[in-house]
């Protein structure tokens, strides 16, 4: 009962910010990259939440920020998913050497904390938002490969896999048409929980300035940019920080809700 309550609120929150993110160009009062008035002007003075250190409208930047933060972590999650599912399927479908090599690769990757692995990729490619997305996607892969592999491995024991094999289905057919659809509920829950990590990862890397563009209207970058004015205008960094926290929390709760409902019994 309680879980359902928090689950519903998490979903409502996520739908809300997704709508704002999608509609940002339509509903944002100003251009998020251009100054609209005096720097650090207070709320209500022509702008709803005041302006930042360069005189840009905070509300518009937060709206576009939802767009940048949600989309870049979504892209990172999709990268992780495609790597994790491909290699996870490959590992569970093959016996012996390939499986063991892929598992060793995933374990080696897991010996480096995901955030550091992501930072390593940024070090290799050079700062920038596309790099951050790719890096977070790659950095989260080792864990996802291992989890996907264990889900597929456990499904391999099911009767319908034997039945399909007896009917002459090949490995690829079993993987794509039998394992993948049956693993879907667990994979969706796993991907949702992973999205929380990816969101935290992207906003952390942009907070560290690794997107290379300090004026980017993105929540992590805004959390960083607002630090300079912590006394004059604390809202500039506290608000994006709060939004990041609530979103991570909501995605996490949504993932928990999905994983409890996807497991029978």
């Amino acid at each position, binding site marked *: 009962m309680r879980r359902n309550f928090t689950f519903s609120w998490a979903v409502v929150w996520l739908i809300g910010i997704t709508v704002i993110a999608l509609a940002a160009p339509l509903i944002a009062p100003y251009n998020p990259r251009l100054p609209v008035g005096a720097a650090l002007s207070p709320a209500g003075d022509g702008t709803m939440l005041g302006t930042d250190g360069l005189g840009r409208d905070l509300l518009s930047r937060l709206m576009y920020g939802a767009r940048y933060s949600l989309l870049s972590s979504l892209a990172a999650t999709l990268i992780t998913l495609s790597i994790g599912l491909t290699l996870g399927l490959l590992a569970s479908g093959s016996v012996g050497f390939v499986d063991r090599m892929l598992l060793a690769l995933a374990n080696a990757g897991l010996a480096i904390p995901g955030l*550091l692995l992501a930072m390593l990729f940024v070090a290799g490619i050079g700062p920038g938002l596309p790099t951050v997305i790719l890096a977070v996607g790659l950095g989260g892969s080792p864990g996802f490969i291992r989890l996907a592999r264990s889900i597929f491995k456990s499904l391999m024991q099911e009767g319908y896999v034997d039945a399909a094999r007896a009917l002459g289905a090949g490995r690829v057919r079993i993987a794509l048409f039998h394992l993948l659809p049956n693993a879907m509920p667990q994979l969706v829950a796993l991907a949702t929980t992973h999205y929380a990590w990816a969101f*935290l990862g992207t906003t952390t890397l942009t907070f560290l300035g690794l997107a290379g563009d300090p004026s980017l209207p993105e929540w992590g970058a805004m959390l960083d940019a607002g630090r300079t004015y912590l006394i004059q205008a604390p809202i500039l960094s506290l608000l994006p920080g709060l939004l*990041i926290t609530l979103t991570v929390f909501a995605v996490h709760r949504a993932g928990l809700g999905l994983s409890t409902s996807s497991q029978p019994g």
Partner: protein
Amino acid sequence: MVPLPNRSHLQLLTVIGRRLIEGLFTAWAAVTLTFFALRIAGGDPADNLLAQGLASAEQAQALRQQLGLDHPLGIQYLEFMRNLTRGDLGISLYTARPVGRVIGEQLPYTIALALSGLMIALALGFVFGALAAWRERTAEGRFAAAMSDLATALPVAFTGILILYLALMLSLAIGRPMAAPGLLLPAIVLGITSSGPIGRVVQAGLRESLNSEYILAARARGLPGGARLLWHAVRPALSPVISLIALEAAYLFSGTVVTETVFSRPGLGRLLVKSILEADFPIAQALVVLAALFYTTSHILADLAAIMLDPRQRRAG
């Protein structure tokens, strides 16, 4: 104490030996992954410097020769591994100083921060975890469990800025300008962040052991309430906590990256961010290699400690 029979000693040694070999393999694989990930993702580091306008074409070519980047990747890898076993981590591209020395200078700051952060995390985690398990159905138990959840959900960057903001407000309120943030504030931030998972594991472990048969047996032997919680229940609950500390110790490093940035504190985390922004790949590579080695070492130590603490795990291997 009855001495252990010889066979179980041998069994213990086999478990430990296998764990050591596994650990060595993981460490080697992680270091190899670091090397190739950086090369494959980045292509040629000299080209990166060129592209970012940090070096001229001639400088880039000279750098390529100096770093041996004109050799095949396999040769570069062997060279890298040979230097690594000798403790040679390379030369910084930006300052031309040995990477080992640059890291050595920043290391004490991060160790001080990580250790004090871990202390605070353990204190908070144990208090909230034990309270949540011991007073499970009361308001304070639920409050303690909620605190662990909250600590887990808070991003380090936000906790850091919130604590910094509160400290600034406090110093304004008492009319004294805040001195340069020392160790305490960053350690609190790091501690809060890591206390969440510790609290949850302590809670889960204690709840399980409080309901177990050996606690029932101890109670049947007439053990009083307080001592029962303290020793009998905590000891088996400790081994997952110790494994978690090993995990956390490596993740603490990710936390210090953010904490050091928030508080403008010197240390390895700041060094890592700086080296990435300056395209100083030998430093970034060395830091990730060290993190991976540290992670595998602390993991092995945690597993050995678990074997010592919980006799049931000696049979696992």
